[in-house]
C-alpha cells in the first residue's frame, strides 16, 4: 500500500516549539508544587528568576513562536517569508533556553550569556521573519498592526535584557537594576504577550466562531491603548514614575476593550463553544483583575497610595501568566495542534480517501473538563500568592499540573495519527467522470 507523502507545511517547525513549550509548563508546575515559595517568597532570587524563564521563555515564548509560524501567515494572508530562518530559530531556542535556565539557577552569568546569545539571535531571526511576512504586502487590520507593535515591544524588552546582563557581567552601569527588571517584565508580559494575544484573537476568534469581527474600531482602539500604555511605561518605569498611572490606565483600557470585543464575538456566534474555545474564553475572566492590579501597582510606584502588599508584582505575574495567557494559549493550542497533525497527515489524502474529521483527533469531553480545572487552578495560585499560603499555591500547582498532563494526553492522541493514520480507501466506483465524449 503506497501512502501519499505528507504535506510539507510548518509542522516540523511549529510542533517542536509546542512540545518544548508544554513540557516546560509541566516541568515549571511540578517545580512550583515542590517549591511553592517560588511564588510566595522574595522574587529577586536565582531560583525565581530561573522559574520565571522556564515559564516565560520555555512555555510562553515557545508556544507563541510555534503559533506565529503556523497562524500568522494565515492572519496576514501572506506565506511565511522564510522557513529556513524559522528552523534556525527553533534550533537556537531549543538549545539556548535550557542553558539560560541552568545559568540563572546557579547564578552563573557567563552561562546565561552563552544561552542568552543563542536565544537572542533566534529572537532576531523571528522578529525579522514575522515582520517580513506581515509586510509583503502590508494589509492594515488590527491583527497585523498589533503584532507589529508587539514585535517592537519584544525588541525593546530584549534590549533591556541585554542591558541587565551586560551590567551583571560588569560591562555596563545600571542605576536601579530592579526598575530595569520591572521594565523587562512589563514589556514582555503586557507589551508582547498580552498585546500579541489581543491582536491574534481578532483573526482567530471570528474564524473559529464563524462571525465577522464585531467592531474593527474597538479592536483598533484596544491595540492603540495598549501601545500607548507601553510607550508611557518605559519612561515611567525608568525616569518619571508620575507617568506610570497613565501608562497603566491606557494599558487597562486596551485590555478592557480586548475583553469586550472578544465577548461580543462570543455572544454573536451561532455555534456553541467547544471545550477548546471555552478554555480560551476563560482567559477573559482574568482581564479585570490584571487591569486593576496594573493600576494599583502604578499608583503605588508613583507614590499615590501606600504599599499594600510587597507581592503585587508576583500576583500580577500569576494572574497574567497562569490566568490570562495560559488559558488562552492552551485553548488555542487545543485547536492548533490537532489541525497541524490533520493538515499534515490527511490533507494530501482528501478527495482520494475517506479521512477522519478534525474533531475526531481529540477527546472533546476532556477539553470541556479542562475549561474548568485550568482557570480554577490559576485562581488557587492567585489566592495562594495573595494570602501567602504555600499550601494553596501547592494545591493550585498540582491541579494545574494534572490539567496540563491531561491536555498533553489529548494532544498525544492527535499525534498518534502521524504514525497511525486512520484513512480508508474510497469506493472504486466513484471515478471522476469527464465532460468530453
Amino acid at each position, binding site marked *: *500500500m*503506497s*501512502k*501519499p507523502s505528507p*504535506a*510539507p*507545511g510548518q509542522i516540523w517547525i511549529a510542533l517542536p516549539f509546542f512540545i518544548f513549550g508544554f513540557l516546560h509548563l509541566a516541568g515549571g508546575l511540578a517545580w512550583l508544587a515542590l517549591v511553592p515559595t517560588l511564588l510566595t517568597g522574595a522574587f529577586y532570587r536565582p531560583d525565581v528568576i530561573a522559574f520565571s524563564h522556564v515559564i516565560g521563555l520555555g512555555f510562553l515564548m515557545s508556544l507563541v513562536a510555534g503559533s506565529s509560524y503556523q497562524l500568522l*501567515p*494565515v492572519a496576514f*494572508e501572506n*506565506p511565511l517569508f522564510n522557513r529556513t530562518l524559522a528552523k534556525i530559530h527553533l534550533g537556537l531556542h531549543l538549545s539556548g533556553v535550557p542553558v539560560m535556565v541552568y545559568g540563572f539557577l546557579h547564578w552563573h552569568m557567563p552561562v546565561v550569556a552563552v544561552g542568552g546569545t543563542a536565544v537572542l539571535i533566534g529572537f532576531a531571526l523571528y522578529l525579522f521573519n514575522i515582520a517580513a511576512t506581515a509586510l509583503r504586502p502590508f494589509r492594515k487590520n488590527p491583527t497585523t498592526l498589533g503584532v507589529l507593535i508587539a514585535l517592537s515591544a519584544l525588541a525593546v524588552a530584549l534590549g533591556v535584557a541585554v542591558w541587565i546582563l551586560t551590567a551583571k557581567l560588569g560591562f555596563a552601569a545600571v542605576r536601579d537594576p530592579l526598575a530595569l527588571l520591572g521594565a523587562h517584565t512589563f514589556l514582555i508580559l503586557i507589551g508582547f504577550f498580552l498585546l500579541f494575544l489581543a491582536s491574534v484573537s481578532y483573526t482567530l476568534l471570528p*474564524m*473559529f466562531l*464563524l462571525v465577522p469581527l464585531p467592531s474593527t474600531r474597538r479592536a483598533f482602539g484596544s491595540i492603540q491603548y495598549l501601545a500607548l500604555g507601553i510607550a508611557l511605561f518605559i519612561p515611567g518605569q525608568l525616569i518619571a514614575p508620575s507617568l506610570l498611572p497613565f501608562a497603566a490606565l491606557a494599558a487597562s483600557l486596551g485590555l478592557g476593550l480586548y475583553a469586550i470585543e472578544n465577548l461580543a464575538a462570543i455572544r454573536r456566534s451561532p455555534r456553541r463553544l467547544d471545550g477548546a474555545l471555552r478554555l480560551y474564553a476563560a482567559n477573559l475572566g482574568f482581564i479585570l483583575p490584571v487591569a486593576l492590579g496594573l493600576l494599583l501597582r502604578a499608583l503605588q510606584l508613583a507614590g499615590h497610595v501606600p504599599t499594600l502588599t510587597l507581592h503585587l508584582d508576583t500576583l500580577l505575574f500569576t494572574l497574567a501568566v497562569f490566568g490570562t495567557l495560559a488559558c488562552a494559549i492552551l485553548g488555542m493550542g487545543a485547536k492548533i495542534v490537532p*489541525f497541524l497533525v*490533520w*493538515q499534515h497527515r490527511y*490533507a*494530501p*489524502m*482528501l*478527495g*482520494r*480517501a475517506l479521512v477522519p474529521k*478534525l474533531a475526531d483527533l481529540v477527546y472533546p469531553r476532556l477539553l470541556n473538563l479542562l475549561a474548568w480545572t485550568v482557570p480554577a487552578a490559576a485562581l488557587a495560585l492567585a489566592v495562594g500568592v495573595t494570602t501567602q499560603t504555600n499550601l494553596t499555591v501547592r494545591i493550585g500547582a498540582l491541579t494545574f499540573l494534572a490539567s496540563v498532563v491531561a491536555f498533553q494526553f489529548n494532544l498525544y492522541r492527535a499525534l498518534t495519527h502521524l504514525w497511525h493514520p486512520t*484513512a*480508508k*480507501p*474510497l*469506493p*472504486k466506483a*466513484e*471515478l*471522476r*467522470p*469527464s*465532460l*468530453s465524449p
Partner: protein
Amino acid sequence: MSPTFISKMDLRGLEPPEPMTRILEALGTTPTGITLLARLERRPLFLLEELNRRGQQHSCKPADDGGWLLSIPITEPVSRGSTLQ
C-alpha cells in the same frame, strides 16, 4: 473554442478546515472540463500549498467585495482511491 463550464462553491462562513476539505473532495468528483470557482473568506494558504503539491493548476485573487476567489480548472482525470491501494 470549447465552452467553459463552471461549478461555483460559496465556502464563506465555514470553520477551517471545512473549505479545504470541500474543495479537495470536489476535485475528486468534478468532471474534467469544468472549472471550480470557490468564494472564500480568507486566502487559503494551506489549500494553495496542497494544490501546488498535487501539481493542480489554480489561481487565487482578492474578490471585489471582500474575501478571495479561487479558480481551479479540472483538466485531467484523477483516479480516486489510488493513494491507499
